């Protein structure tokens, strides 16, 4: 029953990608910016989780919530300080700034806390149970349920609340939304806050599942999540979820077929294929309309 086990591995990895990809997709959907610092927000989230558990002695769920709140504020700060004044600049200027912010966070972290990896505390009981011969740990179930819960909450916010409506309006046409009396700045900040909170949650989950956290841990998952967002159709929220899960499962199966050294390459081959054959992603409509 190796394949069932591999599927579980893939879904666990994929749900972490999906959580990060949501932030990419939301920010892109609303201001057409690929926020390269998003992977670093993920890293900050896992460090906040680490220090709240080790330093403050909090339990896992409180640490998760604290990391989400911290990252929401952090995300808004990044937006207000680095991106806001570039709102009307060229997109390449904003993109370069995002890369700069990313490097600043990574190196600032190394400067302050050092480059050594830290071991995330093992605070969830390490139980496993068997389904059809596959060993499934409590942790994988926990990761999956947290991810699904957060995604459901996100869907609810976007479709049923006032701020969600405002976000959809701004994403559709921000000038028109402004004319309709929507506070565009606050809406953008809310988008950053929600996306960053999800990245923060992903960071804590990642720490729990993979143990080792370090200041450069955000780079590869960040890029993978970006690929996931493009795969699903950047700017489309369900696309990011599906893209994340698909990417996680594909990577795991590439690995499982004995090509472990090609795993990272596989993600980029997928990105290239998607850009060639279906540039709008799985869920993207084939129009030039804004999503």
């Amino acid at each position, binding site marked *: 029953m190796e394949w069932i086990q591999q599927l579980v*591995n893939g879904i666990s990895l994929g749900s972490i990608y999906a959580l990060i990809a949501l932030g990419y997709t939301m920010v892109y959907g609303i201001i057409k910016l690929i926020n390269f610092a998003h992977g670093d927000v993920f890293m900050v989230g896992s460090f906040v989780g680490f220090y709240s558990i080790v330093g403050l002695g909090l339990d896992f769920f409180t640490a998760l919530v604290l990391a989400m709140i911290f990252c929401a504020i952090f995300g808004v700060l990044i937006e207000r300080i680095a991106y806001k004044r570039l709102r009307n600049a060229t997109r390449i200027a904003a993109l370069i700034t995002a890369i700069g912010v990313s490097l600043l966070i990574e190196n600032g972290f190394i400067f302050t806390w050092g480059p*050594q990896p830290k*071991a995330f505390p093992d605070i969830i009981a390490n139980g496993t149970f068997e389904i059809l011969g596959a*060993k499934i740990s409590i942790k994988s179930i926990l990761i999956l349920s947290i991810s699904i819960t957060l995604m459901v909450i996100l869907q609810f916010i976007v479709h049923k609340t006032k701020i969600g409506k405002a976000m959809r309006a701004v994403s559709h046409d921000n000038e028109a939304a402004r004319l309709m009396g929507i506070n565009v700045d606050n809406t953008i900040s809310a988008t950053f806050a929600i996306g960053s909170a999800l990245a923060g949650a992903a960071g804590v989950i990642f720490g729990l599942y993979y*143990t080792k956290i370090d200041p450069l841990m955000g780079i590869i998952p960040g890029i993978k999540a970006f690929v996931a967002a493009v795969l699903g159709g950047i700017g489309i929220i369900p696309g990011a979820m599906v893209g994340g899960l698909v990417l996680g499962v594909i990577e*795991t199966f590439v*690995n499982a077929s004995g090509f*472990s*050294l090609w795993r990272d390459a596989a993600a980029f081959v997928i990105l290239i294929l998607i850009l060639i054959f279906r540039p709008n992603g799985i869920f993207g409509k084939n129009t030039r309309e804004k999503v």
Partner: protein
Amino acid sequence: MKKKLFKVLAASALSVGLLAGCGESSGQSGDTIKIGVNLELSGGVASYGTGINKGVQLAVEEINAAGGIDGKEIELISVDNKSDGQEATSGAIKLTDQDKVAAIIGAATSGNTIAQVEIANDKKTVLITPSGTSMVVTVNEKGKLNDYAFRTTFIDPFQGTVAANFAINELGVKTAAVYGDNASDYAKGLGAAFIETFEAAGGKIVKEESYIAKDTDFRSTLTRIKSADPEFVYIPGYYEEVGLIVKQARELGIDVPLMGGDGWDSPTMVDLAGADALNNTFVTAAYSDEDPDPIIQNFVEAFKKKHKEAPDGFSALGYDTVYLLKDAIERAGSTDSTKIKEALEQTKDFPLVTGALSIDENHNPVKSATILEYVDGQMKFNSKVNPE
């Protein structure tokens, strides 16, 4: 400014000339035997060099207190190479030209040792590195033996050989999987030696997998390994990844013994893998201060008395290097470096703290290795394994 520099140069050239004139026949001045020490006493890897130096000092003190070598006391001449290859080279030149030492002990790292090898060969002075593990220390890249270079520690692939013997003879396993770092020479050397020895002894490698440094997700490869159902998994690599591999392997239900080399040895290893997951895992090492062997216990006690701390592996290797040299000088009956070299080449089963040692045709030691076992997060002495 230039004039001043010239004066300084002239003065130093003069003094070097004077000192050289004073020098006597190699390695011997009156009643002492001069031994050079060229170690990383400061700089990036100073902890290795100072560790060795403490062991060297203890050994020399003991030998001199017991009457020296053939009635002559050892005189140590220390050079700090500042963890730098160029400093190591000039240190070796000073020790050979100026001090005319009988032999040089050092350096701690392979790189700083290789920086001295040419000089040792040119000046026909024995050079022994206590802890340099690279193959090219004793045999150059073209496969030619560096006549005057020796080492006390085992080379990297040796650990793989020892691990394979341990798995077959002590654990009694028939099948094994190997899961190593794809990009490190260290891991590749250990892995290749393991496979060769394991198969030669009749074992079967059921799976060979590799990972890339900095990976965090090993579950899918470990699932493959699990489905091959090995009785033993060899994981050559460094603790940053191995810690996660051990943890994830246990989570997936791989309960067989796991084993690796000295790259596992770090306190962070226990944090990453967790004490429970590390039970039933084994590590090859140069020595263990828990080993009940009296030669080791005497060393540990004497070391604690002199330095007020417990010795590490480097101190043990430094200590051994002095005794290895003493034995060779006694057997050579001379402090002539060529004779010492010939005596060193004849070394056979000489008992030392880090195991009974013989020198093979490549000037590498053949000796027993110590197997340590993780028990509830502590490394415990398990057994000694002979290379054969």
